[in-house]
């Protein structure tokens, strides 16, 4: 780590009164809730250079920075923040990119409050340094400059690596191994890269142009992308190794299998999995029908089932698609909601109607098979269950009906079985997740590694990237041990 400055240099004198003792955590300006609820543009605007420099000056540049351990990809946080503080933005971007190829994405969607920021020492007495916002700022700044710096690529090693899935896990492995001189090809089932970043997380939270730009950076590292290639069908893993000449494979195929509730009426028209609802809107741009060909039901009253980020994204999407009323139906109470606080807060501000301690038991249709209402039952919290959370139990006789024309089921995703089904040698657990060693990501098959949601179940972008990072180390060692 670089040497520590004795005291914070006063670079902020232009914008802040010199003697002001404690600089508060800098806010990001946002679109007004009632305006943004009707457009797909990004909600927060991001820091200006001035604000970013002020926020950067709040970091005390710890000698043993705890924040770095909170980051699954180990970004040199004080390192890049120092350069922002000193106005060396190019250098800040370079430090960032050493450990994170997708900073504009992570700066937006990382649950920072549970990762790097929760351990920040400034947070003990005040609010922690806004690491995520600074990360987002520096990535956006570099992109807006129009010239993205490409690091030096090691000379070719003659080893070929195939990556299955262009989500954050796959993209990370691809970038890391390409920098080390391996020849990397990413096979992606869909027609666009990014995985959930492209098809799941909505435009207003993560603009797709940013995903494209960060993927383009990975491409500029020399990675080749093949789209519309469903591995297991297009090529099997064996074929990749034996016929297509790849020396090693990384599987980052994600948790793309939607769960349904198995209640009556779930196949009526107007019942969507969150995956379908979001894919139609994001990947296929159904919100811009008929300019784009893919339709999505024009709902007036929507019920979204679930309490996680995916449910918040679906509810906020429904509003933007023109619904008058959007209910978020969750069977526990607000404190048990797994979604990020920021997302819950944004959803509330925009006017999502939270129906907590409520569980759907039946969806009712009209004579054309379209959803017309949903029967719910009220719940109360009982004894804690295996997850440590109090178990919701139905209150007998409390059933009631809500009029809705669309139901979005956002109760979670399992592992997509397509690839394991095509590859019986690939060992999985009882939920269908691929078994892989913690440290290396090595699967039950020689030379084949896996990481991200397909291994640990639906989690976060940065955990998927962390898994990609450790797997790429192991893969590099494995590749270099081969005679080619």
């Amino acid at each position, binding site marked *: 780590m670089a040497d520590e400055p004795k005291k914070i240099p006063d670079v902020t004198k232009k914008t802040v009164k010199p003697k002001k003792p404690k600089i508060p955590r800098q806010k990001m300006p946002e679109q007004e809730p009632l305006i943004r609820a009707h457009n797909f543009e990004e909600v927060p605007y991001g820091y200006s250079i001035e604000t970013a420099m002020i926020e950067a000056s709040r970091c005390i540049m710890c000698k043993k920075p705890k924040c770095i351990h909170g980051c699954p990809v180990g970004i040199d946080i004080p390192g890049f923040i120092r350069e922002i503080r000193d106005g060396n933005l190019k250098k800040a971007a370079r430090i960032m990119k050493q450990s994170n190829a997708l900073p504009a994405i992570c700066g937006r969607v990382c649950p920072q409050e549970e990762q790097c920021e929760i351990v920040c020492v400034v947070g003990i007495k005040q609010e922690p340094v806004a690491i995520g916002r600074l990360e987002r700022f520096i990535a956006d700044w570099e992109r807006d400059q129009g010239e993205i710096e490409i690091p030096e690529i090691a000379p070719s090693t003659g080893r070929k690596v195939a990556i299955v899935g262009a989500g954050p896990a796959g993209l990370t492995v691809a970038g890391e191994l390409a920098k080390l001189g391996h020849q990397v090809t990413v096979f992606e*089932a*869909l*027609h666009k890269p990014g995985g959930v970043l492209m*098809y799941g997380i909505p435009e207003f939270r993560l603009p797709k142009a940013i995903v494209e730009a960060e993927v383009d950076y990975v491409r500029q590292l020399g990675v080749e992308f093949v*789209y*519309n*290639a*469903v591995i297991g*069908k*297009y*090529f099997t893993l064996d074929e990749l190794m034996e016929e297509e000449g790849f020396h090693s494979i990384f599987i980052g195929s994600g948790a*793309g*299998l*939607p769960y*349904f509730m198995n209640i009556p009426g*779930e*196949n009526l*028209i*107007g019942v*969507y*999995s969150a*995956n*379908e609802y979001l*894919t*139609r809107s994001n990947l*296929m*741009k159904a919100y811009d*029908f*008929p*300019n*784009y*060909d*893919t*339709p999505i*039901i*024009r709902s007036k009253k929507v019920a979204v089932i679930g309490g996680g980020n995916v449910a918040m994204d679906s509810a906020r999407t429904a509003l933007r698609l023109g619904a008058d009323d959007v209910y978020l139906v969750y069977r526990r109470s607000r404190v048990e909601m797994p979604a990020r606080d920021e997302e819950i807060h944004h959803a509330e501000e925009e006017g999502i109607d939270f129906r907590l301690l409520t569980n759907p038991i039946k969806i009712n249709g009209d004579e*054309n*098979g379209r959803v017309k209402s949903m029967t719910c039952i009220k719940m109360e919290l009982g004894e804690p269950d295996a997850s440590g959370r109090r178990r919701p139990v139905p209150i007998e006789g409390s059933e009631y009906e809500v009029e809705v024309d669309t139901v979005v089921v956002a109760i979670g995703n399992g592992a*997509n*079985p*397509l690839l394991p089904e095509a590859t019986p040698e690939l060992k999985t657990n009882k939920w269908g997740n691929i078994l892989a060693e913690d440290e290396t990501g090595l699967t039950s098959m020689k030379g084949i590694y896996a990481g991200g949601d397909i291994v640990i179940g639906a989690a976060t972008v940065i955990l998927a990237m962390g898994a990609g990072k450790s797997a790429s180390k192991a893969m590099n060692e494995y590749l270099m041990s081969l005679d080619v």
Partner: protein
Amino acid sequence: MNRIISKDRLAEGIVDLRVEAPVIARKRKAGQFILLRIDETGERIPLTIVDSNPEEGSIRLIIQEVGKTTYSLGELEAGDSIKDIAGPLGKATHIENFGTVVCIGGGIGVAPVYPIAAAMKEAGNRVISIIGARNHDLMIMEEDMKKVSDRLVVATDDGSYGIHGFVTDALQSLIDEGLKIDLVVAIGPVPMMKFTSLLAKKNNLPTIVSLNSVMVDGTGMCGGCRVSVGGKSKFVCVDGPEFDGHEVDYDELTMRQSAYHDMEKEAMDIYHKCKIGRDGEDK
């Protein structure tokens, strides 16, 4: 990009494309399909791989023009390209020597039944095919079907060609002949598959049908293609597209196919208006 090598019109509203897709051409098996997206603003739609030529690196698609995407496909010419083609998707047909297999195709359903008939024939089955259309002009792939069948029966709804009646009538007459049938494969409009399955069931004939629900990704990720089979929800794109014809909830399938009728009509209306603007006439 997937270049179109050749284009033919088989009948009014039905086009036959040979498209470059070298890997799919090598890998595909009977019963599988592709998903295509014509251009950047296009919808992803599924189409059966009717045939392939691995040497040429091409696959054959036969398309009935029913809406915006299929009409737009019908406008493409040799040399044009299709932006995205993903495949081969879906489970391949279970092929073995069953004995006598009756392959039934109704309307555009002849196209997807053809590769199955061909594979059944190659596996040593006696293949008897029934193909049906509303009238003689709409009858497609008769020559192709003849080549892969031991016997071919044709039927038209209006009697303008072959047997006067539905494919179910033709199946009934095969049953009446006392023919021993080991398997029925029926592909076509939902009512046709439904009534064929009912007739087959009455005669204790195992039946396979291929379902065409509305799809998006085709990889099991969205669940939009789900249909109840044997009381359980199945994803047609990965669990199918073929299922036991006696177990399928056809009414639910028909209902789910109608999910976007209003918007599909709207898209078609705009498409037509653009056509009039461009060509000075409605096509």
